[in-house]
């Protein structure tokens, strides 16, 4: 039995090299995830370990040599495999990254987050025509809404230069529960949230969410739509959600 587990673990463990240093990891893991955990400084905007990799920002480029073939690829959606040789900081990679930063800066020139990140790699201006958008279309908000929250309020629409992300038909969202996960993950902070004691607004999706007030202490504690979603997922009676978590088991 123990021998079985040992061989299984051996099968899953792969050996690879990063900048000449030999390392071990689990087969199929995201290469970027492994590199970040090992402390390599690799810029990335569209990657988050809680959701599937998408590879849209193109910043996490690395050189991977597999067999006799070397290619430049995004590391976030590259699965770890045996015997690959990874180079994270060659001249070629730095050059590619600079171009990617310039392209991103052309799309979103006024984001302080992107500017400071680009400045670290020596890019302060772009030679391309500036589009003055505020979103880099990384799709993190959409993936988080679908995979982590499970609500599917957002999606991509259009193609090419007209591609956009948002609620269906660019109308005010009807299904957003106001959990704020998209606000939190947005790498360029273009999704804003306004919180008043009794109302929460997700500005970009034009969603107004009234806050549920606790029946016992009178404190607004979560958007009502969010509690409805929780009720749907857990199947608990609505009375359970009328009390805030602090009052649920208090006996008066």
């Amino acid at each position, binding site marked *: 039995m123990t021998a079985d587990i040992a061989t299984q673990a051996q099968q899953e463990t792969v050996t690879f090299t990063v900048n000449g240093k030999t390392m071990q990891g689990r087969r199929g893991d995201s290469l970027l995830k492994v590199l970040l955990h090992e402390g390599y400084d690799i810029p990335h905007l569209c990657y988050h*370990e*809680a959701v599937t990799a998408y590879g849209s920002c193109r910043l996490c480029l690395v050189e991977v040599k597999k067999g006799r073939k070397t290619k430049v690829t995004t590391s976030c959606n590259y699965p770890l495999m045996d015997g690959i040789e990874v180079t994270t900081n060659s001249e070629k990679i730095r050059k590619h990254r600079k171009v990617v930063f310039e392209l991103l800066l052309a799309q979103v020139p006024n984001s302080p987050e992107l500017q400071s990140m680009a400045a670290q790699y020596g890019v302060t201006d772009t030679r391309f025509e500036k589009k003055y958008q505020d979103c880099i279309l990384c799709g993190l908000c959409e993936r988080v809404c679908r995979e982590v929250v499970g609500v599917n309020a957002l999606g991509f629409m259009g193609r090419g230069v007209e591609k956009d992300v948002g609620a269906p038909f660019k109308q005010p969202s009807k299904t957003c529960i106001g959990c704020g996960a998209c606000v*939190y993950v947005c790498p360029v902070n273009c999704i804003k949230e306004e919180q*008043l004691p009794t109302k929460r607004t997700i500005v970009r999706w034009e969603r107004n969410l009234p806050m549920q007030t606790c029946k016992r*202490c009178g404190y607004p504690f979560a958007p009502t739509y*969010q509690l409805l979603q929780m009720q749907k997922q857990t199947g608990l009676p609505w009375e359970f959600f009328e009390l805030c978590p602090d009052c649920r088991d208090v006996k008066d």
Partner: protein
Amino acid sequence: MIEPFNVYAARLLPSQELFAQGHRACQGCGPALALRYLLKALGPETIVANATGCMEIISSSWPETAWGVPWIHVAFENAAAVASGVEAGSKALRRKGRIPDKKPTVVAIAGDGGTFDIGLQALSGALERGHDFIYLCYDNEAYMNTGIQRSSGTPFGAATTTSPAGSKSFGQKTWKKDLAAIGVAHHIPYVATASIAYPFDFVEKVKKAAAVEGPALIHVFAPCPTGWRTPSNLTVRLARLAVQTGMFPLYEVENGKYHMSVDLPFLKPLDDYLKPQGRYRHLTKDVIAVLKKGIDQRYNEILEKCEANHE
């Protein structure tokens, strides 16, 4: 500003555990939670100088350690001094080219005793010299590690072993020292109070503190079930109630400008917070009235400062 989040977003914090599980903290330990969030926010490029206290004891019992980052245990009084040394040393080595030119985040961690009482002069010195580091004070409101002695972080009315409640005494007779105000008085770029009940708020504040040039002071409120004589499942609830009753307002001060982190519609009744705690069990109505008055006054002072800044 990101508001206190719901359970959905919890998975969005990094999964890497740099403050590993299996340490010796009590059930429901607040400070251990604070350290976990701290290292999730800072990541592996961090060096920690840890003063004597609960968190040093529980995380480093020989031959094991809970720390996934370089960590140094120092005496009670000099966490800030050692952190300044680490910061200056790393700067010098980087300038000489002995180590790669990559700036680590240096964090000094101490409890309320190690900050409010014993480590105050080292802290003041480090803030004044302007080292680029974070000072994190986890405040469980007494010297819990040595047996619940009072510190100057202990709030008015709380019973500890050296401020006992009885027929001649109602517990602690002095008010909690205002650490954030001491930090602000040094004119450092970033001072914040945080609470383990608002993890995303705390994580954002730590990230901000790491990003600023110069010293940053974070005062994080972390309940101690053992010392407070409470059930261990109430840790997070008490931390939240401390904020909602006005006992521990959450705010940040960036370059002297106050900003309230959590807008409260109204203050919850103080009894909600005091009732579950054994250390407040002896309080009579008139002592609670004095406590309430003092808390309201302090809360309103901070509120005024925040509003003055908005106008």
